[in-house]
């Protein structure tokens, strides 16, 4: 059999990709030909695989392209962008599933035959780890909801009837200060030290209690009222570690793997990379426990989707290194806006000089408008985002169940 000559030989790195597919096309049919009902089946199958690669590439090119200036709401790392990212993931996942099942129709054995069985169970090991990221991100979305409420308080106070009472100004300032402290707090956690988190997680320390009492309503103290422990994730969980585990030993399939899997090793690799990148980007954008973006990510440039994903990765990584975002608790554009907006307003309100001068009132009105914008973006974006994260979770679970069932059935033929 010609294909056996191919096994074990390593293909030069540069020729991996499309060229490999074509090598395989010539050689694999001899091995797998008997699986195809019609002589044309193999070619159709290869076409399907290529279309998948191409489609993944298109989706990420789209995500990487900078939107026209007018559509700034869609820019990189905005809520809208993250939602598009998840949509793209869902599409990839679905097409991947179709490929696995269409080419194995009536021949389950194919999925269960080494090395594809190993590659698939490897992929789903990564996918299971991604589920924990989904749960943590869901928590993060809750966190954002909480922050939004503080903004809403400030908004309710500042957007009330004119002229503003001093009490309203102070109320707004307190809400914003509480929020700033909450965000700072989150940065400590997100910044990495789990130990820090542990110390502050439960209740207030006795020192803090003392401070609160004597401080009587001072903002520094009352932010403690709004600290909550993370819902679903245990306190030792680390997003950074999880990401590392997802990306661990993610390797381009070798030539013999490609040939022995009827080419399926490639979509598995593609999907693993997409999964890894999407989870990494989620962690980058959304607050979650012990974020850390220093994970190694590299794919051979000549894969059709590699360029756009790599460029996205680089851009997001660059963003995380920017001075003002270095210690941020999430690169989401809206978080930046929250911070900017609340800092700006808090500055305007500190100290509260009453009554407001006309100029200050104007500035305040402007600040409030920005605030309204962020609030609306969060209000409209958070619920659908949570649904999508959940959907990603469910889809992963479903296709994992399908594939594993398939594998176990073929291992125990009836």
């Amino acid at each position, binding site marked *: 059999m010609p294909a056996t000559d191919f096994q074990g030989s390593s293909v030069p790195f540069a020729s991996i990709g499309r060229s490999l597919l074509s090598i395989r096309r010539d050689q694999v049919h001899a091995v797998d030909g008997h699986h195809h009902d019609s002589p044309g089946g193999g070619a159709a199958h290869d076409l399907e695989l290529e279309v998948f690669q191409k489609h993944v590439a298109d989706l990420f090119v789209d995500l990487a392209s900078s939107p026209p200036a007018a559509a700034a709401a869609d820019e990189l790392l905005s809520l809208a962008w993250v939602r598009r990212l998840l949509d793209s993931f869902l599409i990839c996942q679905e097409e991947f599933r179709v490929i696995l099942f269409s080419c194995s129709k009536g021949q389950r054995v194919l999925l269960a035959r080494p090395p594809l069985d190993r590659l698939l169970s490897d992929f789903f090991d990564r996918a299971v780890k991604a589920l924990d990221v989904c749960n943590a991100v869901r928590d993060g979305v809750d966190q954002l909801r909480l922050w939004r*409420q503080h903004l809403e308080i400030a908004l309710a106070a500042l957007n009330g009837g004119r002229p503003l009472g*001093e009490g*309203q100004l102070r109320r707004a300032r307190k809400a914003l200060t509480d929020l700033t402290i909450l965000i700072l707090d989150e940065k400590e956690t997100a910044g990495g030290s789990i130990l820090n988190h542990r110390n502050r997680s439960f209740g207030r320390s006795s020192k803090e209690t003392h401070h*609160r009492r004597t401080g*009587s*309503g*001072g903002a520094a103290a009352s932010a403690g009222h*709004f*600290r909550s422990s993370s819902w679903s994730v245990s306190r030792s969980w680390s997003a950074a570690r999880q990401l590392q585990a997802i990306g661990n030993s993610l390797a381009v399939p070798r030539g013999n793997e490609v040939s022995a899997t009827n080419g399926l090793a490639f979509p598995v690799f593609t999907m693993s990379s997409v999964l890894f990148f999407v989870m990494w980007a989620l962690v980058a954008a959304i607050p979650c426990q012990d974020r850390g973006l220093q994970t190694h990510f590299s794919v051979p440039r000549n894969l059709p989707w590699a360029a756009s994903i790599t460029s996205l990765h680089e851009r997001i990584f660059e963003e995380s290194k920017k001075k003002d975002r270095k210690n941020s608790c999430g690169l989401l554009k809206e978080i930046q806006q929250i911070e900017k907006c609340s800092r700006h307003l808090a500055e305007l309100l500190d100290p509260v000089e009453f009554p407001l001068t006309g100029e200050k009132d104007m500035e305040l009105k402007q600040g409030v408008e920005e605030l309204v914008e962020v609030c609306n973006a969060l209000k409209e974006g958070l619920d659908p985002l949570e649904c999508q994260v959940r959907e990603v979770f469910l889809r992963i679970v479903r296709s994992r169940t399908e594939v594993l*069932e398939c594998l176990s059935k073929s291992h125990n033929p009836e």
Partner: protein
Amino acid sequence: MERSQTVTQKFSSFSSSSSSASSREDRPREIDRSRSLGPVKLEKSYGKKERDTETVTIEEDEEERQEEEEVEVVVVVNKEEEVSNVPEEPSEASFGSMSEEVDGFLSFLLSIDDGRDQWPEPPAMPEPTIKKFLDFVEEELVKYESGKDGVSPPANDELVLFDAIDRVAKLTSALSIFSSDTRYNKAMTRASSILRYAMCFLEDEFHSLLEDSKPKKDPGIARPKAKRRPSIGHLHEAIDRCVPPSSEPDLVEFPSTYPPEIIERLRGIAGAVVSAGYATECCQVFTIARHNAFDVALSNLGYEKLGVDDVQKMPWDSLEAKIATWIKVFRQTVEVAFPRENDLCEAVFAGHSTIAYSIFHNFARGVTILLLGFAEAVAMTKRSAEKLFKVLDMYETLRDMVPRIDALLRTESEPDDCSAAHDLTTEVALVGSRLGEAVVAIFCDLETSIKTDMGKNAVPGGAVHPLTRYVMNYLKYACEYKNTMEQVFRDHKTSENPSSQVEDAAKGSSDDSHNPFAIQLMEAMELLHTNLESKSKLYRDPALCSIFLMNNGRYIMQKIKGSTEIHQLLGDTWSRKRSSEMRQYHKNYQRETWSKVLACFKDDGLQARGHVAKPVLKERLKSFNAMFEEIHKAQSSWVVSDEQLQSELRVSVSAVIVPAYRSFLGRFSQYLDTGKKSGKYIKFGPEELENYIDELFSGNPSSMVSRKRT
């Protein structure tokens, strides 16, 4: 205009009545009491404290207070002469009348709010009273705050204070109607400052009540322990007796929420804060405090948050323990913690049912989703037979809790269309069906394990095969969950044959004859049967082969007799078929073993032309003896552990052999030489023979030869 004047007059008359100066000694007793609770040391340091609300700083000290007033005037108080007339300490009576006066003014302002265009000039305002009133409220707040470090102040004081705060809130918004007027504006600013100060401090108070009022532990309410099913980790060895229930830690309860007096105070604060328009802050403090409290309670109950990944990696015995904890915690949460939390929300936010509902709903949602995560992760673990029962327990837990969650979340206003309840119960049901799918898959895996059990070693003595024990014990426990299993199979068994689905639909689900679980069970039984038949071929002796089949068949029948559920599922036809098979095995055994023996006793060939051929007779007896000894030797080592079957077999053998032997001897022993030599041919008396038969199938190889000689 006229109306406004009368109102003003009225107000001034009130204010004059309250102008009688009162000294600190005349302070109302209640206030004194509340004050005495506060630590005295606070008084001196007060002035140096940095406060958020600098303008409303108030000194306890009389002299300083006057200085302070002058400072305050700059910011707050109007320049009117009334200031100098302000009494230093209003009496209780005057506070009451001040309140009335403010109320009167409030209702007046509200009454003209609609037609305020008709008021080119804002109506006159009872400024002195408002000033005095606000000062008084402020002072009360300070006193209240300084007192709260000690024992909680008398509830009555609080109510008065909350009432006053409520009035300040109303005043703030009412004054804003004419806020373009300088005097109104100033008064409004002052009122809103005091209001905000009050809100800050109430937020603190609310928070510390929530956090620090640690509930006392419930005097362990003894709840009936749920019926526990024995765990069958080791079915292969286990066998027929029930494994004693594993010792689980005692059921720990969620702590109750707060004592009634605390709830009362929380309600008071929440009421004041919500009606002042500060509901969001209050709800957040409440939500987070309760969330944190639940989190602590969870870990006190031994619940550990596990990731999906952790669960996949965990060895089964650890996971089994986690599942047990989860079941306890989930039931407790829904049955105990949720109703309590709901009651708490309703009590604290009494009169604000929307707020109470939304807080409770968020709480229930967060907690449920957290707990569902674990069930979801378990449903994803590698299928294996031993997991069936724990997964079933989880499934039942979710199934039982759905209606409770639904009932808690269903609002009275829209009992039929409540999306909140619907969304959450859908989530629960979704995870439930994932567990259901796991149950089906695990149970169907039993088929695979039966099919693949292809050991080449026969069980010595034809005894019950471990596979039979395993499968039957497994099925027996599975059938203890009969109703759940049937439900799960109806819901989640995807028919492999699409046409049978059509049949299902045609037959209707109520038709007992089509029960996917029963079919699955039947299939497992058939597979076991087939497997045992092929295992029986491992025995070279066909009689032993029958004994093996009989032993296993009897074991199966006994198990089925012992479990009404299996019996019902398999039906009488099945049992009858098996019984007749058993009879066939028995006949086969009789034929294989004893027909040759019986041949010794035949008359044919013994008597030729009316004479008994002695050599033939001797030969016959010799061969009978040898055969019987051989059979006895072999078959006493065979195992029939079922006593009834053992005695049935012995009796049936005796019934065939002993009478035949007796009659044979009766007919022919006379032809043998009497005396010593006859013992050579007639080794056994009929009774002896019976005794030897009774030693068969005991599993103890015993040689009668050795015994004979001794």
